[in-house]
Structures are given as C-alpha cells and as structure tokens.
C-alpha cells in the first residue's frame, strides 16, 4: 500500500513537472495569440478611440460576438500597465 502511494506521488510529481514545462512553453504562444486578438479588436473597434476602422454598421453588427474579447482587452489595459512583468514571467528570468 505504501509502495503504491509512493509510486503515485512520484507519478504526480513528474506529471506536475511536465505540466509546468508545457505551460511555460505554450504560455508564449498564448501571449502572442492574445496580442493578435488585441490587434484584431482594435482594428474592428478602433472607431471608438479615434482609429480609422471598418464602417460603423459592420462594427456594431460584430459587437455582440466580440463583447467578451473587449472585456478581456479592457481588463488587460487597465490592470497590467506595462507588459514587461508578464513577459518576464512567461519567458523566465534571464
């Protein structure tokens, strides 16, 4: 029984390590995707902040589908300030 528990603990440790390694690797991709989403959102809804964009009817038609992404972007913009810490945290300390 004890051996079984030990084996399970070792497996859990390696699984956790694997997960951490995968996260660290894939987090960079996630970050790039989120940046692309930010750019896409700005392209669509740039009108609201004075950037040239698609015509307003088209923008408004897409608004319900983009509501969640807009919320994420606004939260990011208001909470993060600058992305250096986030990037350092994703890429790791040099």
């Amino acid at each position, binding site marked *: 029984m004890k051996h079984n528990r030990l084996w399970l603990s070792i497996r859990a440790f390696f699984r*956790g*390590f*694997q*997960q*951490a*390694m*995968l*996260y*660290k*690797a*894939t*987090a*960079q*991709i996630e970050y*790039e995707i*989120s940046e692309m989403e930010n750019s896409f959102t700005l392209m669509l809804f740039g009108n609201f902040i004075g950037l040239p964009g698609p015509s307003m009817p088209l923008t408004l038609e897409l608004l319900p589908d983009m509501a969640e992404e807009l*919320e*994420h972007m606004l*939260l*990011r913009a208001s*909470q*993060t*300030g*600058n*992305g*250096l*810490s*986030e*990037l*350092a*945290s*994703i*890429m*790791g*300390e*040099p």
Partner: protein
Amino acid sequence: MDAVLIMIVAFAGYIIAYRLYGEFVGKKIFQLTNQNKTPAVEFTDGVDYVPTKRGIIFGHHFTSIAGTGPIVGPAIGVIWGWLPALIWVLVGSIVMGAVQDFSVLVMSLRNQGKSISEVAAGYISKRIRVAFFLIVFIELWLFLAILGMIIAVIFHMYPEAVFPVWMEIPIAIILGWAIYKRNAHVNRATVLAVVAMYITVVLGHVIPLDMPTIGGMPATGVWTLILFVYCFIASTLPVTTLLQPRDYINAWELFIAMGLVVIAVIAASFNGLKIVAPAVQAAPEGAPSLWPFLFITIACGAISGFHSVVASGTTAKQVAKEEDAQFIGYGSMLMEGALAVIVIIATAAGIGLAARGETGAVTGLAKWTQHYASWSAAAGLGAKVGAFVEGSANMISYLGIPKYLGLIIMGVFVASFAGTSMDTTTRLQRYVIQELLGANRVGAAEKKSFFTNKYGATILALLTAGILAFSTGANGKGAMALWPLFGANNQTLAALALFTASVYLKQRGGQKYLVTLLPGIFMLVLTFWALIENEMSYIAGTKVLLGIINLAIILIVIFVAFESLKKLFSKEDMQAAQA
C-alpha cells in the same frame, strides 16, 4: 561526508526556515488571509486571470525564476571560500531573497495583479518607473554580453559540447513540427526528443568541433559573434518555430542534469567526496574584496531583483488563494537557494574529487586552486563555470557515467541553459527598447523609427551587447569585469522592490516594515559600496565604457534611495495613506 552533510543540513534548514520565518512573514507581517480575493478570483476570465492549483503555479513560477544566474554567481563566489558563499546563499535567500519575492507577489495580489513597476510607482512615486526601466535595460544589456561569453567559453573549453548544443535546434524544430503539425503525442514526442538529444551528447565525444582563430579573432570572439547572429534569427522567428520547443527540451535537460548531480553528491560521498576549497579565502589575487563583492557576485540564489519583475507577472494573475503566496513566492526562492547550494558543493568539493577510475589526475586543493587561485586564473569566467562542469562530472562518474560523458552532459547543460537565457534576454530587451523609445506611445505610429520595429530593436539590443562584450576582450576575462556590474544593477532592483514593500508595510502601521526595510538598506549600502569601488577601479584602469555604465547605476541608486526614503519617512504621506 562533509559535502553531503552540508547538502542535507542546507535542505533541512530551508524546510525549517519555510515553516518558521516564511510563516512569520506570511501570517504575522503580511497577514495573509484567504478572505482577501485574489485577482484570479476577482477578475476570473479563463484567459489571463485563472485560479490555478498552487502546485502547478509553484512549478510555473520556479521554472520562471531559475535562470543561469544561480549557476554562474555561486560558481564565481566560491573564490572567497565555500563558507561565506554558503552562508550568504542560506541567509540571503531566507531573510532577503524569499522575502522580496514573496512581498512583491503579495503586493501585486493586493493591487489587482499589477506589475512591480506599477506597484512601485503607486507606493513610492511615478518617477520611479523611469528608473525601473533603466535598471531593467542595463541589466539585460549586461547579461546579454555576459551570456554570449559564457557560451563561447564553454564551447572553447569543451568542443565536444558544440555538436549536441547546435543539434538541439533541428531536434526542437522537428519536435515542434511533430506536435503542432502532425498532432504527435506530447509525452512520446518528448521522450524521443530527449533520447535523441542524449544520443547527440554521445556523438559529441566522437566529433569535437574546435573553432580556429579567424582573422586574428580568438575562438571565443568568433563564437560570440556567431551566437549574436543566431540570437537575432531565433528572437525574430515566431516562438513556435524554435524557441518554444527548445525551451521545453532544455527544461527536461535541466531537470535530468540537476537530478543526476543531486544523486551523484550522495553516491560520491561514499567514495571520498569532501570539501577541498578553503573555508575562507579573503584576498584572492586580482579579485575585488569579499565585502561587498560577494553579495553582488552571488545575486540569483541569494537575492535577485529581477525576481520582482517575474513575480508580479502572470503568477499574480493565477494564484487562487492568498495564503498560497507563501508556498509559491517564498518556497520557490528557497528552491533556487537549494540549486545554488548544489553549485557550491560541485565547485568546492566535486572539483577536487578524482573521477571514478581516474588515476594520476591533479585532485584536492591543488585542483581547486587551478580554477580559483586568482580572479583571472585560467581565463577567469571559463575556469569558474568550468569548475562547476568538472566538479559535477567527477561526482556523476560515481553513478557509472564516464567522466568524458559527464563533462559533455554538464557542458551542454550550461551552454544550452545559457542559450535559452540569451534568447529570453534578447526578446525582453527588444520590448524594453521599444518601450523606452516610445513604440507604445500615442503618436508613435506616425514617427516610424527603425529602432522601434521588431528587427531594429533586436539589432539595437544585440549591437549594444556586442559593443560591451568586445570592449573588454573576447577571451572570457571580460565577463568577469561585467559580472560585478550586473550584480550591482540587479541588487539595485532588489533594493527598490524591498523599499516598495517597506512603504507598503509602513502604511499598514507598526514596525512590520523593518522586515523588508533592513534587507533593503543592507542591499543598498553594499551595492553602493561596490559601485564606488568599481568606479575607482574603472577610472584607474581607464575603462571608459564600464565607468560610464557604472556611473549611470550609481545615479540610479541615489535616485531610488532618495525617492524611497523620502516617501518612507514623510509623515504627511504616511498619515494620509493610513487614513
């Protein structure tokens, strides 16, 4: 047996410190309570803010703070003897480094997951943000130049490591292609990639690649140039192509190599492993004095200012419960301290051990002295990092792995780990340059600048690092001149983070702020002292570029100290904040 005893006592000490001092700082000083909602819970969105299990966050956070620093710093710091290095790593990580990491994480958690520069700007002054960015810029600049030299020196010292390190690139590209394009099973692909990597280690022994002198430029100089070109390509490619799968393989390599070394310490202890380094070597030839330089030479592993940047990034957005911050912030720094202890054992004990079956080799104190007799002995940095590689290989030989393979495994480990750091540093420096030169400012789009686009900023990052790398020669000694500068700059950031935490704690009332203020003042005084000594030596040696950078750091230190202490001892500000 003394080496293994040191390892066991140090590890046990870390566990006790975590239980006693860690809990004291967490519960009594910062009064952690799960009643406070973390940003991950308050703003949960399944994208950036995701409450995550503490074990997983610990893994994420530890892999983010463990870089090349905890290997190189202690490997150099042992020059003053193993005892001061060990004491600094133990005490520094417990009462300073872990406190800094933890307090920054908690402040970020209680400030909506904001980064340390934002938090510091809020608690101290908005002007501090500029100082913050300058410190980070200088830090990355220096480190980039140092990393190029570290890898170049490893390639020069261990030509057998060259083939495996470069072969990691095609292996990584194939791994990425197999997983992303062919939907290969991640675990199976990982095992195959790691096995392939270790096959190249064996092949490396058969095909050593010695770089000749080209056009009068020494081999280390040529390697440094090649590495900078590689860095430009790697840092401008999409992350999925090369960096991300390479980092992933490297992480496993780190895990395997460090696991081997820990087990090897125990195996070698039954075969005569003992400390051969002197307990204290107060005045090694050509080396700066122990006080204050030990405390800036060993930065990561004891206290690293850059951790404050990392701790306030994604980690703060994923902590599910505030009380988890002790395990994540405090615990992971102690883990890094444990890594530094292993490096000290390899360089103070492993280096003097005869490898299994080795006869006639120089061993004991004589061997240690070859590497540490003076600051520049056997080409400075190369000898110090080499001491870790050789010391580890000696110990690993008692696990049945021949020393020649052990040397390649550890050489590849250090070079590829430094390579990952170099990629990371280049990318981060690119962002800092873009930020400093105003790519993100309103109106920047109209003023198109070469140095704010991806390629221009990367070229600027590498060009400035190249100037620095070659300003002190390309033979490996230069990095020894740069390292104290890097350490002093890093510790300035640490002092700034600790001062920010002190202001935060003082606003909460009582004398609790002393827990962060005392380490902050300690770091500030030692850093300032080291910088002044640096400046005098640069003036005496007419090292203009280093003198200018050092002077810039001195001015930043004065600015940081002035702004922080003014805020800390301003009665009006404190009363207003407490009200």
